[in-house]
């Protein structure tokens, strides 16, 4: 089944850039150029995710979001905004968006986040999972145990959460800023190779046993856990 994405964005260049990017990744994309149009499309509820610009003519992005949520439509929404400060971000998340991305952004970051949102599904509808698996890597969320090929792997609490994040998004790219947000709850771009060092430690623990490597670097974007290189 092809997945549909709604892009609500008044700037034609950005809209095209985003739409092309999603199309190349196998999505069907509808573009709405203002808030009213966006709301009209979105009320169908047939989209896998909505990319919503914050500043729109006609109807402000957050107002569209509010109207959607009020209408009981819980399609995952990621808000795009040129307002970059952490406060704007908090405001965006509080008004019911599922994620928030500051312009300018890399498309790889956007699609990584959109795919993570779909994996998470509509808020509240998350199925209860106690075990996460990728090839011969298994994580028991209740016992907080990780095994690779049957051998116990000792992880620090944060390494555990980092791996959990990667496992939940396996097959998808997880960016460095997503990691900082999910694991430590800080919303800034760490910039230097801070996250890379954490990953390389994690990699040593899970991939060092001579088995097929599972944790892959996606250059310039982030990391991905998958059982096929």
């Amino acid at each position, binding site marked *: 089944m092809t997945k549909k994405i709604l892009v609500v964005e008044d700037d034609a260049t950005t809209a095209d850039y985003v739409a092309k990017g999603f199309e190349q990744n196998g999505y069907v994309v509808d573009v709405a150029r203002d808030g009213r149009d966006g709301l009209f499309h979105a009320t169908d509820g047939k989209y896998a995710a909505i990319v919503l610009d914050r500043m729109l003519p006609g109807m402000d992005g957050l107002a569209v979001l509010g109207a959607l949520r009020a209408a009981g439509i819980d399609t995952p929404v990621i808000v795009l905004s040129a307002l970059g400060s*952490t406060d704007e971000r908090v405001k965006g998340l509080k008004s019911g968006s599922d994620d928030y991305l500051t312009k300018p952004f890399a498309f790889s970051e956007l699609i990584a986040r959109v795919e993570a949102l779909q994996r998470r599904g509509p808020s509240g509808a998350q199925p209860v999972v106690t075990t996460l698996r990728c090839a011969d890597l298994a994580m028991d969320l209740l016992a907080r145990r990780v095994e690779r090929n049957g051998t116990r792997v000792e992880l620090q609490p944060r390494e555990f959460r980092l791996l959990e994040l990667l496992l939940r998004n396996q097959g998808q790219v997880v960016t460095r800023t997503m990691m900082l947000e999910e694991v430590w709850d800080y919303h800034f*771009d760490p910039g230097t190779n801070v996250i890379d060092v954490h990953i390389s430690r994690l990699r040593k623990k899970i991939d060092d046993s001579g088995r097929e490597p599972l944790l892959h670097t996606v250059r310039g974007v982030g990391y991905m856990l998958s059982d096929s290189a």
Partner: protein
Amino acid sequence: MSILSALRLRLPAPIRIALISLAFSLVITLPVLLFVYHQTDSLFEDRIHDRLDDDVRDVLFADSSSGAAALPGLMDQALRTGELRGGVALLVDARGHKLAGNLAGWPPVLPTPSEWNEIRLYPEGQVRPDLFAIRTLALGDGRRLLVGTTIGERERMRAALVEALLGALLLAVPLGLIGGWVILKIAERRARAIGNVAARIAGGDFSHRLDEATGGEEFAMLAAAINAMLERIEELVEQLRLVTDSLAHDLRSPLTRMRANLERAATGGVGHRRQQALEAVSLDIDRMLRIISATLEISSAEAGAGKEHFESVDLAQLLRDIAEIYNPMAEERGVRIVTEGPPTLLYRGNRQSIGRAVANLVDNAVKYGDGPIDIGAADKGESVELWIADRGPGIPTELREQALGKYRRLEEARTTEGSGLGLALARAVARLHGGDIELLDNGPGLRVVLTLRRAGDLSLL
């Protein structure tokens, strides 16, 4: 069109000011003079009435006590001795014949009795006529009495008052003109001084200031207010200039590299070298985005944004988080991050921006300093203190203020990766929390201390 607006249109400023000051002096002096005039005049008339009353009483007393036959003799005697103070008296019989007194005859058309007549008379023994106040009354047997007193004095007083009034007016005109001119000159000089400073500033030189010491309180206040405004404008313009200059500088190097790398990728080469060039471009773009977002973050913190998202933050936990995030990277460089201070330290503030500021400072310490890096927090009651101390080369005292400036990165630091805005951001965040940042000597190394003031409402949490 009103008179004032007509004046404004036609007259030059000094004359206008002179006229206005003249009008003011008239408004002030005229009522005073009129009041004096009225008061002295009525005082005078009271005295004349008193005098006439006395004379009439004296004559009536003599008439009743000495008898009608003796009255003419007594009156003439009293006139001579000045006992009749009014100085003029006349007694005539029923047919109008003079019995006593110093007037030749009864003035025509003077009714009897009458309270107050003002008549020009020529009493016997006087060289020129004078104005008199006259009272008449009837005595028994058809006799009529006239007493009078001069009121020329009152007339002269009136004339003198009018003269004084005119004199005051005449004096007010030149005084008003001079006063107006002086005020105008003073105002003109101040205005010109302000104008000169404004012109210099318009010419691009922001260092000029008005003299706040001279020219009285009002002008000093005006000068101080204008100077404060200029101070702020200069600060903002300077900031803006720095931002633009440094942003241009900081963006130029990645842009130049990007251009070179893109050219390399475009002109071909083997696949993986091309790939490398493109990745380098993407790294440079990331760097530019970081510079821009740090700039925006600083600006918004400086503008006070973020206060609405103050929440209770455990600063000790925040330091442990940041240490945990940065420790692996630090250890790769052979440096250890050690956290100090109490196990919990609650503070009401913006967790994200404090976290980002501390992360920036730790990042700097790891990159430019040497270990071990101590990070810690202490509760100082009214405020909390956060510190990040390294054992690297530090920053020389004279360069510390410069290091805090937005974009004023130390030259050696320019070669290393990063936006160079870490200290400026930390300062903006500290100020957002009512505090400041200090760069101290760690002997050896740099000790950065952030002071965050506690808002009063922490107890409400």
